């Protein structure tokens, strides 16, 4: 089942009828290995994850913190290629039709592959969208247009430094959902789930009708409970990578199940 871009938003909104909040997880392809990735994804899929970001490693991941940075590097050192990432994504998308898979990567990977070729292939392997943190709409006009043409969701970002005006502008360019960065900084640091986050999320809500995914520093049951009702999707990034590093892929299932329980 290939989801189409307009369908990602619809799909998420459908799911939200049954769940209070959705879950998106993240992993770095090839870290620690594609085999482990496979196990992790299985555990995620079986425990009710809605979306998974598959990060294609890049040598210069400037928006990522130390954990994901290291994962990118080790994967590259082990020899991961973009081609392998596509093949792996194809396999996963086919195997877990209930999960919405998105590519996350940096723009140079896309640029070197060729925007059109990259997006076509992304669509063809069954993914629903892409998250490119270093491609603002201003630089991505063509990329965003082509994504939409191919019915892939080009995910955009809200951040606590965004003005209302900027949020509106950005949301108009994006599809699927908006990735609301919970705080300043890179991935991997804890975010305080507090009142200022609440008012930030209210602002986000006012700026768009797209579902709101909240990420950066979401790592436990309490975080998710607090987000419920304010956001549409919680994004678990670094937390799973740490978990796999420390306890292995098998620990992911119970972890996700617990989070899903909080949702």
């Amino acid at each position, binding site marked *: 089942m290939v989801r189409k871009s307009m369908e990602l938003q619809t799909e998420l909104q459908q799911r939200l009828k049954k769940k209070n909040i959705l879950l998106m997880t993240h992993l770095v392809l090839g870290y620690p290995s594609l085999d482990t990735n496979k196990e992790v994804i299985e555990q995620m899929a079986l425990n009710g994850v809605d979306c998974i970001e598959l990060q294609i490693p890049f040598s210069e991941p400037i*928006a990522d913190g130390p954990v994901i940075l290291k994962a990118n590097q080790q994967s590259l050192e082990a020899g991961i290629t973009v081609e392998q990432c596509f093949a792996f994504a194809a396999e996963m998308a086919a195997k877990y039709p209930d999960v919405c898979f998105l590519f996350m990567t940096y723009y140079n990977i896309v640029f*070197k592959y060729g925007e059109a070729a990259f997006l076509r292939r992304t669509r063809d392997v069954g993914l629903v969208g892409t998250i490119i943190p*270093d491609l603002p709409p201003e630089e991505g006009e063509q990329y965003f247009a082509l994504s939409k043409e191919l019915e892939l969701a080009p995910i955009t970002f809200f951040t606590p*430094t965004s003005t209302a005006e900027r949020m509106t502008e950005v949301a108009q360019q994006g599809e699927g959902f908006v990735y609301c960065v919970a705080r*300043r900084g890179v991935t991997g640091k804890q975010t305080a789930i507090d009142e200022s986050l609440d008012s930030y999320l209210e602002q986000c809500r006012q700026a768009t009708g797209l579902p709101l995914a909240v990420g950066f520093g979401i790592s436990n049951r309490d975080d998710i409970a607090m987000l419920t009702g304010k956001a549409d999707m919680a994004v678990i990034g670094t937390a799973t990578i740490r978990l796999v590093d420390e306890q292995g892929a098998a620990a992911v299932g119970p972890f996700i199940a617990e989070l899903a329980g909080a949702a």
Partner: protein
Amino acid sequence: MKKGYFGQWGGAFIPEVLYATFAQLNTEYEKARADAAFWQEYVELMGNYSCRPTPLTYAENLSNHFGGARIYIKREDLNHTGAHKANNVMGQGLLVKRMGKKRVIAETGAGQHGVATATMAARFGFDCTVYMGEEDVARQRPNVFWMEKLGATVVPVTSGSRTLKDAMNEAFRDWVSSMDDTHYVIGTVCGPHPFPEMVAWFQSIIGIEAHKQILQQFGRLPSRVYACVGGGSNAMGIFQGFLDTPEVELVGVEAGGEGIDTDRHASRMTGDRASAGVAQGYKTMFLQNPEGQMLDTHSIAAGLDYVGVSPILADLGEQGRVRFEAATDKEVVDALALSMRKEGLIPALESSHGFVQAFKEAPTMAGDEAIIINMSGRGDKDIFTVAHAFDDPSWKKFIVDRGNEYSK
């Protein structure tokens, strides 16, 4: 053309969280640029704190030695902190003051830009954090020492190749958390718009002076102007004095390392290992593999050891306005040795790249032609690298003895 682009190069590929920061920076930069008083303040600061205008020295001995064009040398080595880097950091410092920020961060490779930024921060009373590849921290300890004594915090970067580009990534990572009170002082004409344009503007003081000086001293324009190209700031600085006079040929010299046909160099505009790409917030020629992963680079000159190059230079190269050449590590050491003996000048290893190409071409030129070499910095702070490159036995003995003394 799209704002922040030079031909197909440039742009601002920044995470959304920096959008507002860049908006503010662009506004302040444009205001400053439109304000003649700002430039005046900048020129005065550089005159009073550094020693601008730096001289244009006629290198009579080298000219006679090569027996061709008359060689003039623009003396950026005489700047406070020893390189053209001072121009950029002091300019950005003034801007930071305008923006009301209290902290600056910087990346550094050799440490030159780090020392310059730490100096500027001390002078302006800013907090300062400098990111520096762990390998560079180890190689360039003297600069680390000075940065710390100047009050900066030096953070060793352990990711990636642990050199300049990784330090730049790490500075960005700091910035996306700290932008409210922090300005990122990029050290060269690279990075997202407005940095290339802005740094080029501050560095244009070199070319403005050099243009005036060569007319005064030589009576006419030079035939060629040579500058080494790492990120490209010193080159852009001097080239801007001659961009509008097409009869002046502009020559940028990259790090040929162990040869541009090896995989140990840092030549983006010469050789065939570089291709268009987008990283560190901008689009330019990068040394990368076909999938877009950045390659390891090498140069004897830490300041040239960088994967990217100014988008402005990428464009000028594409247009044919700037000719690019490469100098190997070995040629560089030879040119440095000759400059020392003939003129009593110690160009930085970076700067010596420009000397190499000038020395190759000067003899083929007429005696009534002039060329200018931009001596972007002084080499005496490269003592550890240079003495190592010369494989000086007394130096080694000195270090061994000192080491033994300290390990007692």
